[in-house]
Every structure is written in structure tokens, then in C-alpha cells.
């Protein structure tokens, strides 16, 4: 058994953590989920592409009231990673509108979601402000 598994299968943990999309061979549309066919052109063949790990935060919300069991507050948003839109939380910053703003540069970061009964860690991802670590 590996020591770590990704929270979702489109998060690759090595060599460095990054996201992998299914790109339509015919039209280039990108998807993160298992596909039956392409939503853009109905093509049925795809290849894997690495998504850039740096991007720009194009929108966000700060969720203060969520479903039971979901810790709040947290920042949810969309990051434009070189033309591919990615849904993610903004992490490693205070969840308030003075620290989070649209247009800010962000980069992929990982965190441990939890450890199961066999000692395996699940690793999730988010995006953190570039300023915070440079």
C-alpha cells in the first residue's frame, strides 16, 4: 500500500503535485472527471494533459454557513491555470476579503485530509497566494 493517496484521481502526487485533465483529442476541451464523451464536440477519445500549477483567482466566495460536517469559514473559488479553469479552495491565507481578492496570483498547494485505519494519508489540494510563500 502507498503511504498517500490523492483525494481525487485527477490530483497526481508525483513527481511534484499537479492536476491532470482529460483533453478531447478532437476539440481540446478539458475535463477532470471520467467521461463518456466530450460535452463540447461529442468526441470519444481523450488523452491526459498536465495542468499548470500556477494561475489567477478569477472568482471566490467565503462560505460561512455550510452543510453539517463541513468546517467554516473557507474560501471556495475558481482558478484560471493557463486557460484551464479549476475549482478549488484558497488555502494558507486568512478567509476574509482583505486577504483574498479576484485577480490575485495563486499556486497549487497540498494538505493532508486525514489518515485511514491502515495509516494511509489522503492528500487534498488547494491554491495559496503566491505572495504568502515568496
Amino acid at each position, binding site marked *: 500500500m502507498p503511504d498517500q*493517496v*490523492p*483525494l*481525487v*484521481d*485527477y490530483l497526481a502526487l508525483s513527481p511534484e503535485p499537479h492536476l491532470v485533465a482529460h483533453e478531447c483529442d478532437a476539440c481540446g*476541451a478539458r*475535463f*477532470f*472527471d*471520467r467521461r463518456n464523451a466530450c*460535452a*463540447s464536440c461529442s468526441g470519444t477519445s481523450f488523452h491526459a494533459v498536465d495542468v499548470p500549477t500556477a494561475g489567477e483567482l*478569477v*472568482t*471566490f*466566495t*467565503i*462560505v*460561512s*454557513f*455550510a*452543510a*453539517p*460536517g*463541513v*468546517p*467554516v469559514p*473557507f474560501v*471556495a*473559488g*475558481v482558478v484560471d491555470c493557463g*486557460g*484551464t*479553469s*479549476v*475549482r*478549488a*479552495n484558497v488555502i494558507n491565507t486568512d478567509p476574509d*476579503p482583505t486577504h483574498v481578492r*479576484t*485577480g490575485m496570483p495563486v499556486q497549487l498547494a497540498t494538505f493532508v*485530509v*486525514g489518515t*485511514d*485505519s*491502515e495509516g*494511509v494519508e*489522503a492528500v*487534498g*489540494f488547494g491554491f495559496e497566494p503566491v505572495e504568502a510563500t515568496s
Partner: protein
Amino acid sequence: MSSDDVWILGIRMTKFGKRPDDDVMDIASEAALGALADGGVTMADMGVLAAGNLMSMGAPTGQLLQKQIGQTGIPVYNVSNACATGATALRTVIMAIKAGECDMGLAVGVEKLAGAGLLAGGSRKADSDTWQPKGRYGAVASVDGRIGTEIMPGVFAQIGMEYGHRYGGTSFELFARISEKNHAHSTLNPLAAYTKRLSLDEIMNDVMIAYPNTRPMCSANCDGAAAAVVVSDAKLRTLDPDQRRRAVKVSASVLTSDPWTESCQVLPDVNTLTRRAATQAYEQAGVGPEDLDLVELHDCFATAELVHYDNLMLCPEGGAVDFFESGAPWRDGRLPVNVSGGLQSKGHPIAATGIANIWEVCHHLRGEAGDRQIEGARVGLAHVIGLGSACGVHILEKAA
């Protein structure tokens, strides 16, 4: 007037709010019988029934309603299209009449939603004790709150914030002022769930749900129903002068779904399908946004109202903030928007909403809106969005 026109003959919206002593069929019957009486007709005159009740989880809503108001054996279509369910029921009846299957039909939307709370996201289960990939993303644990948010206030917050990122000019206060407008408008609507005017401070200092949407900036869960009787042009000509005088012409009836756009599976794109529906509706009706006297649009959250000013082309592209700042969408402005109070204040009993907004517009076109009448209203537009997505746009015109 052309022979394939269709008309709203009768229409009714119930009081929206908490109705603990009424069940779903009580509320649906009140709307349906009210619409029939308003049109001067009965169930025996109806050739088709379309009904929607999103929370019934597949129950035969139309047939259950017939058990209460008249089992006439006509075809029934139970429809489900998220928040566009009511508009979809109405459009189903319109299509049946345009197809020549019948000359009159009834559309009903009903919901019991008071106290429902958040309607998406469910609750997060405890993580499994062994990580097992599940579903189309191969997730080993729940992703809501870990990879973005599934709650509607958060989804629509991002839709408004994205507009602000693209065009500038938005702020928490701007979005709160949109809500202030709708809570002011509903003070004149006795059927609204909330009729208390809220100050900007009260709105901004209320409970934050998903920034920048505070609680009063979210649509109000409540009980309610709306129903409409649709009639063909040929049949209308045979009816009494008073029925003809109060009939409202359906100049456009459009339903779209969301076409693929780059980011639409990451954050729902409510813009493209609304813009397409509006474009088709203006073409069908032969009118433009400048001809509208009032608009009821789908302000499920304050952040959503802003983007739909643009999507419905009530302003130049990118000009939604300026449109609001000009005072245009207030009831005394150039193009009143949501004079009913909208979903934030009138309330949002989901399946009823897509007919209730038609009722509001018809009320003004008939000159029967009382204290909140928009004087001289002749043309109005009603818009709904159901996430997933479906968009309904109807343009209505006063009888000539």
C-alpha cells in the same frame, strides 16, 4: 394577431410564506382553481395539464391535483427542471396548444419549502476508515468544502464575483443595495413572503452565508403555488369580451439549456444560456429590451440579479453596475426589475416561481396590480434559471 398566438386566459399566485396547516395539494388546488376562475373556465375545458413540484421526488403531482379538483382524463405531464420547473410546465402547455392537440390547458407549480434551509450539499458523512475511490472523480472522501462549495449561495456568489472581476465596479455594498431594492419593492406586495423594508445596514450586518451574500440576499424558502390557464387564439376569439380584454398575449416562450463553455463544469455558466434565451425571445416577440416596461428576473441571490441585467441585455455588455447605479431597476426607474420583491423578498417556492413571475407581469399588463402598478405597462419579460441548467424566458404583451 396571428392564428398561432397563444394567450394567458387566467392566472393566480397564492400567498407565499409559511402555511403549516396546508399540504401541497391544498396550495396547488388554490392556485389551480384560482387560475380557472380568473379565466372564467373550469377543469372540464382543459385539454392538457402540466404540473411541477420539485420536492415531491417523482410523485405524480398533476394526477394528485386532479384527484382534488377534477379527474377529467386529460394527458398530464409532470415536469421537473430545477428552478425553471414552473416555466417548463407553462411551456409544455403552450407547446401542446401550438401543436394543435388542444385549445386550452393548465400549468401548475407548487412547493412546500418553509424552513428548508440550504438545498444542496447535503451533509458531509464521516470519512471512511479506508480510502476507496468513488464516483467520476475517484474521490476517496467528500469534496464539498474541500474542493470548492456545492451550496447555492456560494455558487451564485462566485457568479456575481466573476462578473465583478471581468468588468469591475462591484462590492459587497453594491450587491447588498440590489437586495435593499427588492426588499423595498415587496412592501407593496401583499402576497410576498416578506413585506418588511430592510435598511442597507440591516442587510449587510445580517448573518453572512457565503460572501458577499448575507441571509436577506438569498432567496427566501417558503410555501406557495402559481397556476396559469393558456388558450389558443382561435378559442379565445369565441370567448366573452371581458375574457378577451383581460387575456395577455404570450409573445415569446423560450427554454434553453446550458451549452458547453470552457469553465461550465467547474462553475455553472448561467450567462450563456440566459443570453441565448433572451436573444431568441426578443426575436420571437419582435421587441427589444428598450420596449420592456417591467422585468421579473431570477434573483435567487443578490449576486445573480446583477449578471442577469447584462444577460437579458437590459444594459450594454459589461454595464450592469452602471445600470443599477442609474436607478433604472427601481420601481420608479427607467426599467423596473422585480417590483414583486423578487425571490429574495417575495420568496422562492421553487416550482411555483416560473409561473409566479408570469402572474406578476400579467397583473401589471392588466392594470390590476394595485399599489405597486407600473402605470401604462404594455410589455413585460419573465426569466428563470434552474441550475443544471435550464433557462426560461417569456415575453408578455397587453391585449391590443
